[in-house]
């Protein structure tokens, strides 16, 4: 079978410009994209650089963009992406600097990983193992499945706007300790994760959940840590105020009161934040984009109230 592959090339020793190069390679029917790239490197073009090792989706080396979205190429078959022999476009992961061709600079990834103190903290030194339920360990297995391939970070929309965001991979790692019954620092971890660049910076776009090759579901872990942080009393954040204001606004007006949401999320005592907000308000006003000062009321407010009540009750039952 012929695989047609378009690779984004970059070689800093030659030029700062990137370019696309087309390859055509003969591979077996069930070949993966990694098989094809290796074959290209070994038979046609020794200058092509990529990372790969295990070929079995456990080492996390070979995450790259396939037709615009990050995948582990060792577990992605050519046929699946290109059933009728279409060109497949391979690029390095997004949100990373590129070293050469498909090889990305992972330093920022590892330093973020390190920033969440990624090791169990316990003062207790038992003579045998810690006693823990199998359920708690199996639950952690969901996050321990993370192979640190970087696919989630590649597609993270929050990180694209704000590279200082801790990001889905490191936050999923953080959850592994927050939820580990052996760790004694869950509270202080949550406090730290609640600060700027932490759990509230996620925009809940779901991209990380979608691209994760190991079903780690980073966003769900981030949302869970928000809940846990609130439970632990970490409520002095714009994220938490945003959530509360949103909730109140719907219950009271049946619609989002955007002006109030902005004010309350910023915090009514946060003077510098309010000044910044005022600047945005003025700009919006000039362009005719300022939301109405008083929100419209929906026709059937009763329905909205009953939905809100039902959701509240459901939340209580789950607890």
């Amino acid at each position, binding site marked *: 079978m012929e695989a047609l592959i378009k690779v984004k090339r970059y*070689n*800093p*020793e030659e030029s700062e410009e990137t370019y696309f190069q087309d390859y055509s390679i003969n591979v*077996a029917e*069930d070949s993966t994209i990694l098989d094809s790239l290796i074959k290209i*490197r*070994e*038979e046609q*073009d*020794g*200058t092509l*650089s*990529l*990372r*790969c*090792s*295990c*070929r*079995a*989706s*456990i*080492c*996390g*080396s070979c995450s790259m963009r396939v037709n615009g979205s990050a995948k582990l190429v060792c*577990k992605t078959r050519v046929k699946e992406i290109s059933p009728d022999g279409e060109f497949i476009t391979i690029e390095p992961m997004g949100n990373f600097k590129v*070293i*050469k*061709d498909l*090889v990305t600079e*992972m330093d920022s990834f*590892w330093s973020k*990983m*390190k920033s969440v103190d*990624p*090791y*169990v903290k*316990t003062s207790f*030194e*038992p*003579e*045998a*193992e*810690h*006693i*823990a*339920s*199998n359920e708690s*360990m*199996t639950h*952690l*297995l969901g996050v*321990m*499945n*993370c*192979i*640190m391939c970087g696919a989630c970070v590649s597609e993270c929309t929050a990180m694209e706007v704000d590279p200082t965001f801790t990001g889905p991979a490191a936050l999923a790692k953080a959850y592994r300790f927050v939820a*580990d019954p*052996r760790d004694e620092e869950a509270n202080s971890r949550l406090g730290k994760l609640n600060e700027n660049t932490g759990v509230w910076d996620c925009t809940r776009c779901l991209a990380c959940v979608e691209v994760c090759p190991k079903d780690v579901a980073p966003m769900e872990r981030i949302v869970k840590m928000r809940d846990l942080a609130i439970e632990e009393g970490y409520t002095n954040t714009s994220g938490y105020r945003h959530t509360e204001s949103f909730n109140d606004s719907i219950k009271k007006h049946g619609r989002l009161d955007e002006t109030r949401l902005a004010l309350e999320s910023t915090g009514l005592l946060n003077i510098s934040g309010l000044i910044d907000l005022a600047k945005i308000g003025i700009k919006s006003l000039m362009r005719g984009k300022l939301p109405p000062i008083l929100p419209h009321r929906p026709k059937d407010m009763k329905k909205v109230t009953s939905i809100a009540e039902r959701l509240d009750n459901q939340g209580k039952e789950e607890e």
Partner: protein
Amino acid sequence: MSKHDLLIIGAGLAGLRAAVEGVRQGLNVAVITKVHPVRSHSNAAQGGINAALTDRGDDWRDHAFSTIKGSDYLADQDAVEVMCREAGDAIIELENMGVIFSRDDEGKLGTRAFGGQKKARTYFVGAITGSALLHVLYEQSVKYNLHIYEEWFVTKLIKEDGRIAGAIAFDIKTGQMEMISAKAVVLATGGAGRVFEPSTNALICTGDGLSLAMQAGVPLMDTEMIQYHPTTLAGNGILLSEAARGDGAYLINSEGERFMEKYAPEYMELASRDVVSRAEQTEIDEGRGVDGCVFLDLRHLGKKFIEDRLGYLQEVALEFRGIDLSEKPIPIKPGMHYIMGGIKTDLNGATNVPGLYAAGECANVSVHGANRLGANSLLDTIVFGRRSAIESVEYIKSVKDVEIDPKELSREKSRIQSILDRPKGMRSAELRDKMGSTMTKGIGVWRDTESIKYAIEGMKSIRGQLPNVYVENKGKVFNTDLTSYLELEFMVDVAESICQGANARFESRGAHFRTDVTTRNDKDWLKHTIVEYNGEELNTSSEDVTITDWEPTERVY
């Protein structure tokens, strides 16, 4: 030039465990690795790690006996005793570090059964035990703020006055070559599976440490002992863990028969790996296979059980074969998996070169002998990784800094440059493929005088063609064309030593099964084969096996 007390080459489980110990002992430690630590091949160990926990009625001596019987009495029994005695503490320490081991109903560590042992003593994390351990040791490396040369490629060990003085390596990201001086070095570079094709091993498993040691005058031992794992996928050789059989899966032939009944009536699917692989190959050779495979059948275990305990196997089966293990048996065959042989060390990882140690798959302590039990490899890395670092402490205190001749670096630089300057010729992958098929054909599940001779001759020709290989990529940044060639040089060294070991051992023992001498010969061959490079050629010799309490008897499963 950077200076360290202890330089560890390789950042898999053995390397990281050694490094953590070195830091705890107050040494200035650095780890150098050609891939980021979590990319290391320890990741791929799926099933678990063995230990006899005495506080729940298990006996390390029973574990030791199973290991020795599994080794077909080739393991040094004093080494096995050390490993099995220290296993319990090793597991508890790993748990305390944060490994999320599976639990029993009381919340204590839970076990699964594994091959070659009557008692279930394999501790595990789903079917990703190696990965779960590796990531926790990486966590510890962050906790201890370990100095890691990440993505650096070691090309040579440096000796001065007969003792180790450091290594020469280059940063793969920049091509910058440097001398790294160290009073002691631990080789923890893992296996050499890529010498064969196919293999379950990752592409990075190219025997670097075995070759580096050999070139530094360290003997390799029992290199002919190559483990063929009973359950690998045809074609790409990807592994399906023994955990499946440990948790109750069957092996069936084309007639739906559980054929292990004929070969190992007592242990059935959980006989030693060499025994199961030979049984499978016999079934296939005698026409009871399909397309060169027999089948691993998990259907009776049920979907939920498979997904909870063997999730990664299900993922591999679905992704690579489109098979749901709860619905269909999956075709498997014996595939090259592990090298029991390796760098000859004492019980503390020390080699014959002062200051040079080895641990993990690249080393041969020897605890696995002629056949390794499943779930003993992770244990080997943890126990002997730690011991080698501890052993280095006194040595490091006792020696002064050594002056390295600066010419060493310039000589190595020009050697690499001369490779890059070669005229257009053969690509390294072509020669590597030739080596892979030669070795698989010559040193397979079955071998005989003729096949071994075929491999020796084949390797001679491949060695001869090495200078014709050229490196197309002349750049400095992430030049994998160059590293692939250097890896091929390492592999050719290892392949030749494997052939020599196989040629020397004129008997059948464990994984080394000769169809022309099918029996074990304790009178002449209760011995290790030793292969040594004297600067010009390989010399072979032999050395007695250490027997403590377990006299060799017939091995029946």
